[in-house]
């Protein structure tokens, strides 16, 4: 059992190297290598989970000493405790299912988008898995930073996977730069930690923190604030959230794995991993809670106005991650990580069924278009999609009792009430209400038979083949999104709060009612008429407000005006290097001036020479007398 952690990481590493070095491979071989590595990694992850279940002792695995100079000692160590076991299982499990699904998805997609290499896709995906595993397993901050920046880079590569379309490239660029800003603040936070505690080891930090008195809290605030900036950029919270919506141009399995289930939640993971630090920084924690609430509200409202299915899902991801941040803000670590897990299940389900739907509906992502094409599919398939979306959507909107989302999200809302954050509780409830409306709006618009005004019948000549690599992930995720998913126990210490059964029941009932009311309202509005919905909203709110809502606060516009345009202006005015200009125009001219003066002196006129000579002698004699 000693070397199991390295084995988990080894397979993605090997497959990455294989896929990078061997370029010309058949698609089947690429799929076997790409998925096989994750399969073997997952097997070891499950073994690890069993082992940890039987013997729940955290342990450390030393690989080698990475950097050791003077007093800086950084080891390449992996560390396992309950938190990392959970995350490893989520990442590996969801990763495996999505890898499997993407063999189907990408092969289907290549019929539509030609000339892209499949091996490149699996190379990036496996590299992502490797970095994510390092991020989770790393026991010191530098190793975390390695994984942290690695996943960011892989996300960039995968967003701009269809590199021929300029928009995709720009979206990837935006994602990378935004997360990179956060990464640098993260690094600065690490520097602060080093100055303060002289170590990078998380476990050593933990022991040092347990010895601390709660004094000089400004420094901890500073450290926590830097880390917070890092996490909000990676987890796409306001105001650094703008990249996530654009990131949806990547292939859908990528959106499912990276931009919904795993990488987005790595910020949450990091804060929980170093929660002892954040506990000493109440102001930062409050800020995190505030950011979470703002994000969950704004993203939810924005989802009401979106028409692209992937963008709707991205907005819902934002708002769900907002819930996780709220949970962090109220120090409900266990609830946060539980929501990370459940969210990974149902969001992966929603994304891959959306991906499959998009493929079936002629690669259109607009829900209004999907509706018109949808009816041309055969009846069984339609029912299957409907089923998937209803289960996934009700998990997302936390339909009481039967779905997994209920148990995770309700817990956060409940804990905020119990811990006395009444405002957050209310915002959480409003968020849940909005969530249920936009989720069922999407579902009802897409699958509603009543409104068939714009139906265009396509003759689907080649029916798609839905093989096991398409069906199995959907099936497993379907099961996990229901009540059964919430039965999975997290081997972590629960936070100690005074549970009051009456309050609990009362809160649960209130939020259940709110969710059901939301769904009913959505049904009332969208089941019978949708046509004028957007127009009405526009008339009521005005175009500007609608635009701000649509772009989630209009931060993009702000950044373009405040950062990008000034920078481009700066670049333009200094295009030809002003220093060269100065040298060419001033120094060269001075030298030229002396040159002309000297040539005038040297003119061949004997009497001029003689005059100069005599003047020179007289001045030098006078000078010597004076001196």
């Amino acid at each position, binding site marked *: 059992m000693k070397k199991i952690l390295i084995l988990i990481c080894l397979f993605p590493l090997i497959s990455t190297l294989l896929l990078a070095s061997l370029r010309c491979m058949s698609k089947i071989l690429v799929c076997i290598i790409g998925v096989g590595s994750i399969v073997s990694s997952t097997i070891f992850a499950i073994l690890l989970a069993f082992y940890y279940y039987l013997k729940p002792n955290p342990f450390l695995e030393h690989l080698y000493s990475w950097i*050791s*100079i003077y007093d800086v000692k950084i080891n390449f160590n992996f560390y396992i405790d309950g938190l990392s076991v959970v995350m490893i299982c989520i990442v590996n499990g969801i990763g495996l299912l999505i890898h499997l699904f993407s063999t189907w998805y990408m092969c289907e997609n290549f019929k539509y988008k030609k000339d892209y*290499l499949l091996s490149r896709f699996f190379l990036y995906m496996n590299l992502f898995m490797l970095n994510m595993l390092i991020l989770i397993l790393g026991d010191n901050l530098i190793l975390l930073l390695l994984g942290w920046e690695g996943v960011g880079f892989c996300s*960039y590569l995968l967003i*701009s996977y269809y590199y021929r379309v300029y928009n995709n490239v720009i979206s990837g*660029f935006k994602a*990378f*730069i935004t997360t990179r800003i956060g990464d640098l603040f993260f*690094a600065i936070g690490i520097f602060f930690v080093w100055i303060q505690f002289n170590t990078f080891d998380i476990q050593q930090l933990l022991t040092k923190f347990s010895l601390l008195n709660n004094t000089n809290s400004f420094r901890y605030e500073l450290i926590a604030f830097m880390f917070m900036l890092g996490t909000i950029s990676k987890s796409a919270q306001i105001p650094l959230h703008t990249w996530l919506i654009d990131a949806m141009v990547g292939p859908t399995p990528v959106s499912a794995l990276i931009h919904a289930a795993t990488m987005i939640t790595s910020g949450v993971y990091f804060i929980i991993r170093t929660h002892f630090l954040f506990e000493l920084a109440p102001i930062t924690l409050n800020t995190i809670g505030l950011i979470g609430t703002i994000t969950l509200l704004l993203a939810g409202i924005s989802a009401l106005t979106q028409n692209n299915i992937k963008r709707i899902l991205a907005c819902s991801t934002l708002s769900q991650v907002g819930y996780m941040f709220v949970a962090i803000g109220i120090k409900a670590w266990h609830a946060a990580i539980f929501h990370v897990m459940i969210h990974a299940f149902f969001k992966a389900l929603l994304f891959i069924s959306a991906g499959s739907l998009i493929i079936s509906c002629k690669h259109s992502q607009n829900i209004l278009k999907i509706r018109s094409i949808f009816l041309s599919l055969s009846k069984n398939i339609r029912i299957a999609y409907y089923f998937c979306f209803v289960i996934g959507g009700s998990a997302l909107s936390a339909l009481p009792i039967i779905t997994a989302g209920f148990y995770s999200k309700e817990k956060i809302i409940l804990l905020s009430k119990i811990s006395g954050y009444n405002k957050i509780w209310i915002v959480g409830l409003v968020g849940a209400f909005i969530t249920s409306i936009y989720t069922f709006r999407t579902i009802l618009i897409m699958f509603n038979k009543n409104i068939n005004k714009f139906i265009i019948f396509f003759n689907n000549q080649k029916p798609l083949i839905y093989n096991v690599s398409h069906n199995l992930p959907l099936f497993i995720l379907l099961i996990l999104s229901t009540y059964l998913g919430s039965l999975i126990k997290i081997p972590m210490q629960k936070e100690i709060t005074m549970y009051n059964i009456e309050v609990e029941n009362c809160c649960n009932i209130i939020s259940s009612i709110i969710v059901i009311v939301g769904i009913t309202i959505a049904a009332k509005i969208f089941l019978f008429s949708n046509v004028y919905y957007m127009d009405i909203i526009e008339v009521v709110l005005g175009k500007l407000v609608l635009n701000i809502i649509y772009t989630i606060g209009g931060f993009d516009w702000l950044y373009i005006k405040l950062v990008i345009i000034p920078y481009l202006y700066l670049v333009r005015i200094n295009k030809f*290097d002003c220093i060269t200009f100065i040298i060419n125009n001033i120094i060269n001219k001075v030298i030229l001036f002396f040159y002309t003066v000297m040539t005038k002196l040297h003119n061949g006129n004997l009497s001029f020479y003689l005059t100069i000579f005599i003047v020179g002698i007289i001045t030098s004699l006078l000078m010597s007398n004076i001196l």
Partner: protein
Amino acid sequence: MILLCFLFIPFIGGLLSLSFEKINIKYSRCSALFTMIILLVLSIYLCYLNLNTTNIWVVKYRTIWIDRFGIYLNLAVDGISLSMVLLSVVLGLLSIICSFKEINKCIGLFYFNLLWILGSIIGVFLAMDLFLFLFFWEIMIFPMYFIISMWGSAYKEQIAIKFFIYTQISGVILLITIFTLVVSNFYVTGKLTFEYQSLVNAQIGDKVGVLLMLGLFISFAIKLPIFPLHTWLPDVMAKNPKYGSLDLIGILIKTAAYGLLRLNLGLFPKQSLSFAPYAMIVGIISIYYGAVLAFSQRNIKRLMAYSSISHMGYVLIGIFSSNILSLQGAIMFVISNTLSSAGLIIISGLLYERLNTFDIRFMGGLFGKLGAIPGFALSLTLAVLGLPGTGNFIGEFLILLGNFKLYPKITIISSLGLILTAIYSLNLIHKVYYGKTKNKALKNIFLNFSEVNILSIILFLIFISGFYPQIIFDLSIKSITNIAQKTMFFY
């Protein structure tokens, strides 16, 4: 004795390949290659010796040269110079392999110049006598001048003169400084000596010391180069031989960084320390200025030049921070940054071979077209970005970490400069490799065996230094501790 061999082998090899040209071109190529291989073996042997001794100086050699002025042929090698020598030998080897295909005119003379540049670079690294240091510093200029003026592209004579003037100014300032140092030492001790070891302990007045330190600083700053003395580099880079084998060696080797480390910090630790904040501000300006200009460039090689200026800002900050961490980081960063930009320059040469241009406006959509080139370019960009796992990250991280204790504000500002680095380097990738294919007349030549090998070796070295940097640390930690302790004394 081994050091003397080390010093003379490249010069002799250069002469040999010059004379073999008359007989057969292949002989002169082989002799150049063979010289480099001998040098590589010797330097690896020296590394082996270094790891097995506890002395700071691994090997020394000292004999009288000009008795009257106290000038000795004093050579010595320690960890710092050894790692720099190793880097330059590896790069020399790569550039000779590159030039096999590229250079077709006056081959013997080309290798003669190349090996003489290399020899004088090694001389600079080994010299422990300031006169000898100056001697090699000056020798280095001439072969470089001839190479630019003979094998360069358009306006090559003008550019060669520009290069010559700039480096001569640097040389003259160095000369004046060193002579002043020696003479003022002579007034105090009554002993005329040029030797580093005895000048280290020279008693020099504070004001003179500051002036001398500034002289050294300016002289090295021109060669490094940093803002505002950088304008020669973009021109020289852009107009150098088309396939870039020379950029690798003449320009990329950071003899100036070594000089700053060895002479500025070694001879004037106190003055350097008091000057450090100003030097760091210059470094920050370089970082931002270079990065902004790199973003606006259309010529790939000019872009590389400005990116190099931007990176040198970090090296400057690392050196002037002068504690163990940041010095070690600076060396690490010089090594792996040199390797990564060498890789990118080789790639730009390969692109030139296929597209006949360095202008990024005429490129685009090359991904999936040119075999493995885009893949290599992407991975090298990853290193330029300073992502963890590459040597560049280790270097930058250690520089900033070491600097943070004393100058937190400077560290924060300079680390945010990495955002601009990301912007221009990813922009390069986008413009060249992503998007739709613009160039119709694309010669789709796949890489040959040796090119793939060169690029793979560079990548391998970068990732090795990222994941197992301890090999480089072990090499140089002893002498770095020695230098850092001297400055620590003045804190």
